């Protein structure tokens, strides 16, 4: 699926304004990875952690926000020149990832596990730490954002250049 993306400054402006709109409408920072905790709560009733503290109320804005995202992606794809279709290709990554479909799927599941576990251990993901935390100049978020970026860059070099 080829998305007709905007010039970078326009994309950045749109996302920056989105961050502010979210603060104004919902009254607190936007975040993505916390919503996955609510999905875990729905999937597993016995899990105490995702039923207590900040996760006590499952039916909240974080969960509904996350559930809205796919429709935005769909809308963007439908408005692109390339007609919407399912596909399993990953562009440049296809040359460096496992070549069998099963191998690729397992690689992606493992990478996803690192994203999910890492985000909880760090307290937030690219949205909560780098985007919103960065805009608030929050020191822990700036450090987390820098580490996200540095380790991703190191791993990408290992993948493509070694």
């Amino acid at each position, binding site marked *: *699926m080829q*998305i*007709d*993306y905007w010039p*970078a400054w326009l*994309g*950045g402006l*749109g*996302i920056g*304004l989105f*961050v*502010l*709109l979210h*603060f104004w*409408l*919902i009254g607190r920072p936007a975040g*993505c990875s916390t919503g996955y*905790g609510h999905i875990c709560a729905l999937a597993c009733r016995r*899990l105490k*952690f995702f039923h207590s503290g900040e996760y006590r109320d499952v*039916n909240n804005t974080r969960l509904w*926000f996350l*559930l809205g*995202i*796919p*429709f*935005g*992606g769909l809308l963007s794809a439908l408005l692109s020149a390339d007609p919407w279709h*399912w*596909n*399993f290709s990953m*562009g*440049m990554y296809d040359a460096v990832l496992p070549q069998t479909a099963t191998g*690729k*799927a397992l690689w*992606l599941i*493992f*990478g*996803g*596990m690192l*994203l*999910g*576990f*890492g985000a*909880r*251990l760090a*307290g937030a993901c*690219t949205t909560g730490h780098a985007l*919103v935390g*960065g805009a608030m100049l929050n020191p*822990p978020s700036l*450090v*987390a954002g820098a*580490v996200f*970026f540095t*380790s991703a*860059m190191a*791993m990408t070099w290992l993948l*493509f*250049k070694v």
Partner: protein
Amino acid sequence: MLHKRKLNILAWLLGVLFGFLMSRAGATTYDLHAKMFLWEDFQLMIVISVAVLVGMAGIWWMQQNGLHSLGTGAPIQFPRKPWQKGLLLGAFLFGIGWAMTASCPGTVPAMLGEGKLPALFVLIGIILGTLAYGVLQDAIQCLRRDG
């Protein structure tokens, strides 16, 4: 002050907007991630820099004026994520996952909407990883109580 259901609908609409913007910014295009980390293309670097700067200016303005939220009617909250144990290790693991999948928890649902099947497997992984963290926390709580 909005009723809880209306607030949730508003959050859903914001999610749609976010997914659309992520997609149009290029954050759901795999190659742009590789090219950013290999210093070959600066699309996503400019996107995040401009977004952070716009956010910074707007948040400063909102705080100066003590703006109230439309949805809750209360003053807007600007809670800061704390230093927490494991932040560095967690951020390191997250970065590896980012490089392996060329996606992050916010872009995966948008990619799925675009018909990108790899996102389905990453999504399963994110849920499993989040689940593992919850199970670990429950186990730690259990040990504390018993010990």
